[in-house]
């Protein structure tokens, strides 16, 4: 190994705090007489300082928040708990919409057309920016009635990719007006669809698509 290559390695190790006393003294003696290595030392110090700031500790609560908000965890929730949570979410969403509705920015909207599995159904989706998330307002009509272990699910669609916008049920006339929250990236998906799902079910969408439409970003 040439002198310069060896001292470059010592420079790197010094930045990482891994130089022995003997090597430190040897390096200092060399730097005193070698402008090239002094220049290298300065450049590496800048890079080291930048790298040292490349990662900072995240707030302690953040990991729990990230993990708790992974959308596909629902299949681990017992059906009755999921139904209860859905009811609470609907109630809270309705209350929230009543008091705070109309103040958010429209991010996208879609008109929903039926497939042959739900002829006569229709609906609309409206996305509104709210803080770091999107609020999804969904109105559907004329959907087939569900069995007690079934629900409908809204999906944001791009090619083969789907992310869930949440589940909902309909009344005896196949109607629902629902307010849900979705990840802020949802408005980047070009289409939406609604499938009929069975609970507890596969986290992926079923093949029973009942409504669909193109999402227009605004």
């Amino acid at each position, binding site marked *: 190994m040439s002198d310069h290559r060896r001292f*470059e*390695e010592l*420079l*790197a*190790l010094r*930045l*990482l705090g*891994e130089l022995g006393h003997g090597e430190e003294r040897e390096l200092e003696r060399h730097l005193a007489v070698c402008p090239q290595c002094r*220049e*290298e030392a*300065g*450049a*590496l110090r*800048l*890079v*080291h300082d*930048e*790298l*040292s*700031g*490349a*990662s*900072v*500790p*995240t*707030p302690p609560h*953040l*990991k729990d*928040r*990230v*993990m708790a*908000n*992974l*959308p*596909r*965890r629902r299949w681990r929730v017992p059906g009755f708990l999921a139904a209860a949570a859905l009811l609470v979410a609907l109630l809270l969403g309705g209350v929230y919409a009543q008091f705070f509705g109309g103040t958010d*920015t429209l991010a996208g909207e879609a008109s929903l057309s039926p497939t042959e599995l739900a002829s006569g159904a229709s609906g609309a989706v409206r996305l509104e*920016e709210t803080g*770091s998330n999107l609020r999804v307002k969904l109105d559907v009509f004329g959907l087939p009635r569900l069995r007690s272990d079934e629900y409908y699910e809204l999906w944001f669609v*791009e*090619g*083969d*990719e789907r*992310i869930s916008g949440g589940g909902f049920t309909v009344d005896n006339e196949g109607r629902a007006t629902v307010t849900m929250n979705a*990840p*802020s*990236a949802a408005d980047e998906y070009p289409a939406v669809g609604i499938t009929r799902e069975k609970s507890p079910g596969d*986290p992926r969408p079923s093949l029973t698509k009942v409504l669909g439409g193109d999402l227009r970003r605004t």
Partner: protein
Amino acid sequence: MMTSVTLDIPAARGETWGGPVEDKRGKLGVKDEDVALIRRVAENGDDDALARLYDRYAGMIYAMGLRYLRDRSLAEDLVQDVFTSVWHKAKSFDSSKASFMTWIYRVARNRTTDMDRKRRSRPRSAGSEPLTYLAGGEDTRNLAANIDVTEALSRLSPEHQEVLVLAYLEGRTQNEIALATATPLGTVKSRTTAALKAIRKTMLPEGEKR
């Protein structure tokens, strides 16, 4: 637009779902461990695997958020959005095209740009809650025009990324890196030196050295 998962861990390495994956040396490098973890996310919806990726990269993404969005709350949102995207898009990760570190950096960079654009375009009314900007005001650095340290890191070879990720993102010593990667200590030292020189070359082109 979506591509299937292309993974480069040979079956001969004794991979098992849900458990540790080891190569012939009994250790996995960062690159292969990342690939094994994202595969578990893609195929099994394994949140433990995502949590491990979070432990390694969340600090890097949070730091990006603080640098470019200058708001702790937005930086937290960035971390959440990025890992939610990783969760959803895990199947689109192609290890033959980029390392996981490079891939997640691109996801974070795109999301940062989007959040910054939305933040700038949103008028702040007198009644809205004030944003808690960090020191430096609103003169957010232009992400597209800067090669910052994370971008430079993402451009390195997997071998160079590995030693710097372990040293700087995980705070491991050279000896610990040697043990973690089953690589001779001397090789780790020379690889770290080469990695620092490579990243310096990216960040400080000739003539900008100080």
